[in-house]
């Protein structure tokens, strides 16, 4: 592959399409919904030319189900939606977690609950991403804050979905999805493919032992694979819904394969490390704080690029070195409580919350006013 960089001036949703194609997407199923529709439209035009299949299904439940079915055919598959469609997908997200199916779900978040604000941004689905389906499971979710990150983190989402065999998410929002900006696509993007059963190769992408993430048995290759959402013993045709130990071991493994690899998965950025006041934010709610941190030496920023699994280490690290923390989100405090718990454990006593609802990200002026109120500047 050549190392030549291509440059585009596009919106975030287009950057997501570009990233999916670079990552090797071969199957997309979608249902029209604002503000994610441009992703489906872009892929309808481009995916067939790239040797893939674009499908518009009858609803979002069908989309995610078809995407899981396609993934078992051995191809990278993805869907894109927003709040109401995301709610419909929860059933099958649990199935993907239980059956260990690599799938990518892009959620361009809008204001909820219910139909809410189709054209405005929010971060109201952060908890639903991790806790929306029933039972205990872990997911991987990235939160882009620019057009470039929509590309970079979509590629990462594919890579981690494949590596850990989990449903993985791009948690974008109407602001990032429709924001236009510079996109630089390098010629040598690192791509990870799932390790297939029966295919032996040395690949540095798979440093995780097979005991935790098992090789993927593609359908139609004679593996006689039996996939089920029921409590099962490995991938042999044995369902064991009544066996307490099989269930406990399975659910522990499904969770631990993600939480034990938090350090490999989590991505973040720290501005003004060591500042007395640290803002913790992610996605479009971090745009205002970014501006402030670039101008105020006493105010730092921990910008989370991944929100699930919960980035325990960077939060604790920052909290252990500062006097106060301001958590900034476009919801009523979804990651706030987890951040507060981690910060308290790290010894930080003052953790405040800035909530912005209504569809606009917090402006630098609003963030500045809040910091003044706190006595930080």
């Amino acid at each position, binding site marked *: 592959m050549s190392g030549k960089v291509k440059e585009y001036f596009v919106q975030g949703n287009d950057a997501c399409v570009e990233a999916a194609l670079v990552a090797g997407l071969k199957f997309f199923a979608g249902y029209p919904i604002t503000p994610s529709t441009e992703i489906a439209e872009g892929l309808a035009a481009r995916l*067939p030319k790239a040797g893939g299949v674009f499908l518009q299904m009858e609803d979002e439940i069908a989309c995610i189900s078809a995407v899981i079915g396609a993934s078992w*055919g051995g191809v990278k598959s993805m869907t894109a939606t927003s709040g109401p469609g995301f709610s419909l997908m929860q059933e099958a997200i649990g199935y993907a977690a239980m059956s260990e199916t690599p799938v990518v779900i892009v959620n361009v978040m809008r204001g909820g609950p219910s139909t809410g604000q189709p054209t405005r941004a929010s971060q109201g689905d952060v908890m639903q991403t991790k806790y929306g389906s029933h039972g205990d499971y872990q997911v991987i979710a990235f939160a882009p804050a620019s057009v470039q990150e929509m590309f970079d983190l979509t590629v990462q989402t594919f890579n981690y979905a494949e590596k850990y065999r989990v449903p993985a998410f791009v948690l974008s929002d109407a602001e990032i999805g429709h924001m236009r900006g510079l996109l630089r696509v390098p010629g040598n993007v690192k791509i990870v493919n799932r390790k297939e059963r029966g295919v032996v190769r040395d690949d540095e992408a798979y440093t995780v032992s097979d005991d935790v993430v098992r090789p993927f048995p593609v359908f*139609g290759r004679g593996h006689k694979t039996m996939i089920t959402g029921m409590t099962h013993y490995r991938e042999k045709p044995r369902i064991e819904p009544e066996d307490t130990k099989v269930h406990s071991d399975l659910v522990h493994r499904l969770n631990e394969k993600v939480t034990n690899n938090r350090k490999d998965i989590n991505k973040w950025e720290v501005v003004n490390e060591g500042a007395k006041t640290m803002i913790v934010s992610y996605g479009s709610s971090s745009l205002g704080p970014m501006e402030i941190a670039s101008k105020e030496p006493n105010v730092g920023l921990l910008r989370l690029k991944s929100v699930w699994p919960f980035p325990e280490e960077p939060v604790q690290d920052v909290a252990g070195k500062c006097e106060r923390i301001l958590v900034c989100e476009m919801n009523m405090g979804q990651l706030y409580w987890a951040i507060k718990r981690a910060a308290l454990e790290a010894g930080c006593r003052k953790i405040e919350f800035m909530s912005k609802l209504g569809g606009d990200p917090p402006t630098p002026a609003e963030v500045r006013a809040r910091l003044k109120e706190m006595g930080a500047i």
Partner: protein
Amino acid sequence: MNCFYRAFNELDLDLQKTAFIGGIGCSSRIPLYINSDAMHTTHGRALAFATGLRLARPDLRIVVFTGDGDLGAIGGNHFINGCRRNVDMTVICINNNIYGMTGGQASITTPHDFLSTTTPQGNKEYPFDLAEIAVAAGANYVARWTTRHVHELTKSMKTALQKKGFRMVEVVSQCPTNFGRRNKMADPTQMLDWFKESSVRRDKARAEEIDHVDLNLAGQITIGEFCNRDRACFEDLIGVGKHGE
């Protein structure tokens, strides 16, 4: 199941290149009992999973096992749209007129005035005619038989397996434990006799100008081949497998 095995074997089809998909319910467990690639999915969504797998892997033959609740109630939307989309797959719907696995609740095909645990005074809703819905929604092949019609059923399954596009074979089946017991047919043979007595060939029903919905209401079962046509299937129309050329 035996009819399906016989049809499958007589046609000498490759089990390794066939994927079996089921939803949730008594019938949807069948894929787990077949020594091939199988997907035991969520309730009602088997057709959507099957659509994704088929389009990703057009080299695989897809067989879906489903039931009246799985296909017609919770999966009704995927059912009508599956017929309409006409993706290549064989759907075997085992219709026992009841939710058997959960203990005998009324389903969308429980006949009018019949008893179930959720209709102790008799079912006051009207049943769906799944086969007629499939015809109207655009399936390429639709047939309905009962478990009493073993030879006809096997023949229809063979026809279905050899065709292209969306094919559905509905099998009206007995659930003596949870349906028969509450409706004065506790002995499985009683139900088979009932199937025999109440079955009316579709062509005959049509000839006598009896509304098939009324037939269903009267506890009668319309059987036969409902349609056999050759609309081009979806993957051929969008050129799956030829993409990127």
